[in-house]
């Protein structure tokens, strides 16, 4: 039972039962949900939350956390996906319920490995930090008091009494005035990171923590709890996975790049091989442009380059036959024996199209994947030029593209600030001569698609709706095949008994 909610429930019995369940826009997720929902809703909630967490990850890479742009874009994203974020809004029951349930569903999916857990915890932490940062002072008070932490701000009299000691102890209180800042009195053991370095005032077993430092404490508490909970959930997981309804969904959730993954073959065959050279300068993102150039010049690419570029080509519409022809033609120019190509390389190409081995249809790499994994070494041309190139060489390359010095400097500044994808957006804007690219870049194939859109005057060559910007009726249809086929065979009236799952979350 939720003890901390009891008091408020009693006060609000008259008519406001629903909001009493979720008194705040954010929570520590201590209690698992205990209602029945349909399997469809189960799936949708989960997918929406994965989308949200992936956005959080992207925004965190593209913008500085806490900056104005970051905050406003994140708020827009949360609102779009209909999750809770603000206090004092009308009827927040649904978004908060969605937030609550989807968090617990994702625990099932993301507890399975160290990497998944780390990723999940990081994004959830960022989400919590954001929600906390937009709370008003009073709302912070209420939230902290209601939480299991029961942190209370000290009275003004006590503040005055201890002002000197507190300001002398807390580095976050610059200058000699505490001002109107709230000070929270918490048991010293809950403020470990603060008191161990003598960064907080201790008296009689309590730490007197200014609001600025409370956030850090809350985050640590949240992280520790979630980490422990995930470990517990992982132990119960085999049982969960044996549930046929859940297994495909959970696997899909943790492995998917939600949103357009550009693996669908809707545009297959629409590109001809002789278009590629011109497309590479007009519509390819710089990472693929450089790979194509290197391939043409050296008649060869190493494995990392073949993977990154080959899958990209598949994503823009190359068929398997075209791909085989393309690579073979080029490699033979490098004096490769055609038989050797057939033996060594064609297998791999077929493999990446899902025609060999375990027949996974590999999806083209997203920006994050390219930026964060498998950095190029000597002799490699893959990776992200903004991330992996020497800044001087990058500058020269941009100059060779005939960009204006002002534009080049903007790009270099963004690179210095590690905003690689935004730098690439700037490249897009300069190549196409537009002021605003109009999208948030996170995939090379997205770059290509958007470029084609601009160049062809908005004519949409693909059939299905793509962008997450445009409002779409939910649920999104571009999930991978596994989950859809598994669920399609189920009666939508099948209920998901969440209460049964609650055992997997508790000790």
């Amino acid at each position, binding site marked *: 039972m939720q003890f901390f909610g009891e008091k408020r429930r009693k006060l609000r019995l008259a008519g406001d039962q629903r909001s009493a369940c979720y008194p705040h826009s954010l929570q520590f997720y201590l209690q698992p949900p205990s209602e029945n929902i349909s399997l469809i809703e189960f799936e949708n909630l989960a997918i929406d939350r994965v989308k949200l967490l992936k956005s959080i990850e992207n925004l965190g890479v593209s913008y500085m956390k806490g900056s104005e742009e970051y905050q406003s874009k994140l708020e827009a994203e949360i609102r779009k996906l209909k999750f809770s974020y603000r206090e004092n809004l009308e009827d927040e029951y649904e978004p908060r319920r969605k937030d609550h349930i989807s968090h617990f569903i994702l625990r099932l999916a993301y507890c399975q490995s160290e990497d998944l857990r780390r990723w999940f915890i990081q994004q959830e932490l960022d989400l919590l930090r954001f929600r906390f940062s937009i709370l008003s002072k009073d709302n912070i008070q209420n939230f902290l008091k209601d939480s299991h932490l029961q942190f209370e701000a000290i009275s003004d009299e006590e503040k005055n009494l201890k002002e000197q*000691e507190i300001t*002398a*102890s807390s*580095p976050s209180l610059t200058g000699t005035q505490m001002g109107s800042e709230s000070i929270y009195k918490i048991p*010293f*053991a809950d403020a*470990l990171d603060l*008191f*161990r*370095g*003598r960064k907080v*005032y*201790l*008296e*009689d*077993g*309590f730490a007197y923590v200014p609001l600025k430092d409370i956030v850090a404490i809350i985050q640590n508490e949240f992280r520790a709890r979630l980490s422990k909970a995930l470990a517990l959930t992982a132990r119960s997981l085999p049982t969960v996975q044996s549930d046929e309804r859940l297994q495909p969904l959970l696997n899909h959730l943790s492995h998917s790049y939600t949103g357009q993954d550009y693996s669908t073959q809707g545009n297959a065959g629409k590109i001809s091989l002789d278009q590629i050279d011109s497309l590479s300068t007009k519509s390819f993102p710089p990472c693929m442009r450089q790979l194509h150039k290197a391939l043409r010049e050296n008649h060869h690419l190493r494995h990392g380059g073949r993977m990154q570029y080959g899958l990209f080509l598949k994503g823009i519409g190359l068929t398997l036959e075209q791909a085989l022809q393309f690579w073979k033609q080029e490699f033979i120019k490098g004096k490769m024996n055609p038989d050797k190509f057939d033996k060594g390389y064609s297998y791999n190409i077929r493999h990446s199209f899902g025609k060999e081995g375990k027949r996974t249809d590999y999806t083209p790499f997203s920006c994050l994947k390219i930026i964060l994994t498998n950095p190029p070494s000597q002799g490699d041309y893959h990776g992200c030029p903004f991330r992996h190139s020497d800044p001087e060489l990058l500058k020269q390359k941009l100059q060779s593209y005939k960009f204006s010095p002002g534009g080049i400097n903007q790009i270099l500044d963004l690179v210095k600030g590690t905003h690689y994808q935004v730098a690439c957006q700037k490249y897009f804007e300069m190549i196409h001569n537009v002021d605003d690219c109009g999208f948030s870049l996170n995939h090379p194939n997205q770059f290509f698609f958007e470029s084609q859109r601009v160049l062809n005057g908005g004519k949409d060559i693909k059939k299905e709706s793509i962008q997450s910007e445009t409002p779409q009726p939910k649920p999104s249809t571009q999930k991978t095949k596994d989950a859809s086929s598994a669920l399609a065979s189920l009666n939508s009236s099948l209920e998901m008994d969440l209460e049964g799952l609650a055992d997997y979350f508790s000790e």
Partner: protein
Amino acid sequence: METFDPADLPELLKLYYRRLFPYAHYYRWLNYGGVIKNYFQHREFSFTLKDDIYVRYQSFNNQGDLEKEMQKMNPYKIDIGAVYSHRPSQYNTVKLGAFQAQEKELVFDIDMTDYDDVRRCCSSADICSKCWTLMTMAIHIIDRALKEDFGFKHRLWVYSGRRGVHCWVCDESVRKLSSAVRSGIVEYLSLLKGGQEVRKKVHLSEKIHPFVRKSINIIKKYFEEYALVNQDILENKESWDKILALVPETIHDDLQQAFQKHHNSLQRWEYLKKVASKCQNNKNDKCGPWLEWEIMLQYCFPRLDINVSKGINHLLKSPFSVHPKTGRISVPIDLQKVDEFDPFAVPTISAICHELDNISTNGEEKEENKAEADIKRRTRDYKKTSLAPYVKVFEQFLEKLEKYQKGELLKKSDLQKDF
């Protein structure tokens, strides 16, 4: 006082464990009011026996069992460990991984050897009245922080028997603290950074935390007599060069010259303070009062061994254990009389055994049931030796502990009453 000869230990210990060791008090302490079931039974003790034989995972059923075993084994040294999930004596019957240390007092060990770089009178295991002040200051500084900053109420300070002091913090909540929090507490209480390779070990930030400020104020009370008179830290060039290593180079020449002209450490210290207050703060070296404080802290601030405090399963020498090299009993220190505590006045085992012999020959010879007479005698015995006042200190500590436990039990039962 009888001089102590380690060769006599076996005989002396036999008498000590039969007639003098305060078992009743000891059990009262470690049983903690019997509130938690099996708390005493799950406690690990370790014994060092004759010929350096070391046995771990000793545990006992009750006070009587403890007495019997101690008298049988005649340990040269007794260490106290953690309270475990199972009886330590049966630990190898427990499933792998299930035998866990669960609770223990928070302990501190302050050892005079760690101050060798700043005391001129002694080194290594030696101590004298001149350097003992370091322990006095350490107790004041650490105890104040434990009491006022952390709110710990039940702190037992014990003389280690040779060259230092121990502290046992016995509050219920403290016994449950994690290793991470214990480490954090030691960090909070530490000001010196760096080993032998580092010359200047204390660097204060501009903002002085109240803990540091209050510690400095304690040191100030003792500094003149301890450092400037007894240790005479500015006595000659060799000694004041060490201080100069801690101040900015810009004032070295001035100080060197002036020191030659002064006659004693007091004068030189006053001069140093004056020069420090005038010199400019630059990037790396601070001046002004910070400089003065940094020197005082490096010479006087307590040095804790983090390894002793952070591990829940760490074993520490028991109070009322005998030190095999000095013969001195590890006695509790009266917190009201810290400044008067004299380690050289602490009774040795030979002394109190001797005292006991004298009493026996002079005392009554009532021949009742031998066992009864033994017990009766034992409860009177220590009282008539120099051990008495120290047991009294322990008794006061226990009374406070028990009063608190009673209060907690009352509170609990109040809460449980449903009206």
